[in-house]
Every structure is written in C-alpha cells, then in structure tokens.
C-alpha cells in the first residue's frame, strides 16, 4: 500500500502510517520535504491527542430512560465473571422463551448475595444492575433491547453503535454491556434479536413492536419492575 493519493500527496492513511513509523518508502519523506501543505497537515495531525480513556469517563445516562454502563465499567465491576453463573437449582436458559432458531437470552441481576439469573415474571427494582448472556445456535447479528411499561424501547446491546453486533454460535456467552434500571415501574421486557444480516436500531424496534422477519429470531425475558 502506498501512502499517496491519486494526485501524489500523502493520504490521510498515509499520514497515519508516517506518524506510526510504518512507511518504508523513502518517497514519503522526500515528498514531505518538498510539500508545504502535506507538512502542515502532518503538524496539524500531530497536535491531536487521544481523548481521556474510557475508564475515566462516566456513563452517558443523563438523557436516557435507562442508565447504561459501558464495557469498561462492566469489567471494573466484575460483572463478566458472574453473568455465566446460574443460580443454584436453575438450569441455564430456565425461564426463557426460546424460538425455533435457537436463541437463548439470559438476564442476570447483580444482587447483594451474588449473581441471580432472573426468570420471566420475576421482580426487579429501580437502580438494580442487570447483565445479559446469549446462546445462539447459529452465527449472525445480535441486538438486545429493553421495552418498558410505557412502550419505550431502548438499546441494551451493543451500546452506542445503533447497529447489531456479531453473534457467535455456541454456548451461553456474557455480553459486555449492562444496564441499571430506571424508575419506570411495570413490565420490563428484554428482547434479544438475532438476524442473518446486519440490522440497525430502527429495524430492531420494528421487530419488537411488530413482526420478526423470517431471517431473524427473537428471545425475551419479561420482568416486573416494582418499587422497593
């Protein structure tokens, strides 16, 4: 790969490769020594630094009905370690509605006495933290949404991207996102959707409120959110 554009200047990627020391062609240095605009672009690029790392940032909960915890917070809380631990006497997948396509959603609460796999119909409370795990028989694209009593649909996984994330076939896997429940009481339904092709949030919302296409399957867990 050359670092140059079609008109002979350094491309954006070329500049990045130069700064990373990954350009072996002396032509790049020669060009920089002769081209003022490219030197200026290089200097300008060098002034840009990385933003603060994710661990130092707070969840973006202010403008959403659900308060989200990002992957970094989840890792820090050790949630990934407990998501896959079923409650004693409860088999993985218990309480889940599994459709023919082979998709299982598990919702786990970070309780005071340790992780607890929640059955459909179970009670949850505002402020509690929930994690998710999914078992998929087939590869595809995955999204998990939350539907509250008022019909508001929000994205639980993958947070922040608005498009589905890859679903890997196999046994139950924890998802790297969690949610903290807000104060809207009533039914809290969590729906996992897996499709053969990538899909976006709007398409997923349509599936949750309407019909799931033939190329997709869904699995849900319905909980009751009550005041403490």
């Amino acid at each position, binding site marked *: *790969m*050359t670092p*140059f*554009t*079609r*008109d002979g*200047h350094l*491309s*954006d*990627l070329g500049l*990045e*490769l130069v*700064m*990373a*020391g*990954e350009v072996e062609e002396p032509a790049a240095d020669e060009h920089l020594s002769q081209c003022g605009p490219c030197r200026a672009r290089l200097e300008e*690029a060098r002034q*840009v*630094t*990385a*933003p*603060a*790392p*994710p661990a130092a*940032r707070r969840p*973006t909960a202010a403008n959403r009905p659900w308060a989200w915890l*990002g*992957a970094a917070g989840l890792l820090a809380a050790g949630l990934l370690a407990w998501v896959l631990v079923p409650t004693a006497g409860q088999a993985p997948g218990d309480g889940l509605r599994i459709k023919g396509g082979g998709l299982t959603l598990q919702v786990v609460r970070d309780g005071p006495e340790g992780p607890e796999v929640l059955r459909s119909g179970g009670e949850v409370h505002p402020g509690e933290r929930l994690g998710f795990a999914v078992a998929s028989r087939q590869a595809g694209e995955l999204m998990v949404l939350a539907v509250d009593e008022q019909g508001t649909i929000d994205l639980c996984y*993958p*947070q*922040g*991207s*608005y*498009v589905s*994330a*890859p679903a890997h076939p196999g046994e139950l896997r924890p998802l*790297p996102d969690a949610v903290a429940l807000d104060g809207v009481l009533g039914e809290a339904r969590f729906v996992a959707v897996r499709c053969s092709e990538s899909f*976006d*949030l*709007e398409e997923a919302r349509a599936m949750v409120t309407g019909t799931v296409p033939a190329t997709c399957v869904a699995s849900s867990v319905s909980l009751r959110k009550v005041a403490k």
Partner: protein
Amino acid sequence: MSTPAPGTALPPVDEIYRRHGAMVRRRVRRFYGADEADDVVHEVFEQVLRAGSGFRGESRVTTWLYQLTTRHCLIRRRNARRRQELFDTYGAPAWSHPIAEPDAEARTFLQQLWHQLDPELAEIGIYYFVDGMTQADIGALLGVTGRTISNRLAALSAAARALESA
C-alpha cells in the same frame, strides 16, 4: 512498542488505545465535530473490544483500525439519518471538505449519494472521493483486488450520474 507486523495477534485494547487513540480521533473528526467526536472514538474502541477477534493479522493495526473507524462512522451516520431526532442535531459532515478538489461525481457523492448506498459502496466512495486513495490501495485496505474496486466505483459513478440527470 512497535505496531505488530502482519501475521501477529492484536495487542490488548488499552495498548491499542494508547498508541492509536489519537489516530482514531483524527479519523473520527473527518466525520464528526469536536463536540461529538470523543464519544464516537470510545464507540470505536467498544467495537475493538467486540471485533478484536476479527483481526486476523493480515494487515497492520493502523490500517485495520483506520478501516474499522471509517466503517463505524459511516454506519453511525447512516443510522443517525434514519433517526430523524438525531439527524436534526447534525450539521454538515466534517468530511464534506475532502483533501482533493472534488469533481462533479465527488460532489454528488458527498452531498446526496452516500446515504443511499450500501455500506460497502459508501465506504469505497469515502476512500476514493474523500481520501483520494488509489484503487489499488483501497483494494489492499479492504482485502479485495483493485479490479473489484474499479467495478464498484463504476457502479457508484453510474449512480451519481443518474442522480445528477434526474
């Protein structure tokens, strides 16, 4: 630390962030303003957390991350457009000011066509019209032949011309 050569495994995410966070931010700024760019940068690294297993060591981390960032920004913009309430908050894309002087096809692509294309074609269009990359380099970045890129660009140009004459 040096960037792994092709054929090696992806380094830990925190290491990638330290080394390449600035590069991702620069790339994101091609698509987003300063007020939103940092959030998008972190979304990209969430993608790295999830998509890291997709790194097969066939390219360097720099080029892999450059492509991942470009794709994430394009998909995010496409979906933002579909979500009217988010679209209303956006101004003109930062990347509407390309490196190279745009010709008619580039202007059409930038202003009208990009959101109507499938994501792969839009990504190719960004590399070609906005970044000014050669077809061979786009092919190398995407892991396809330059001939494939040429065919895809021909389809893109036809679409642009049809839009211009409509």
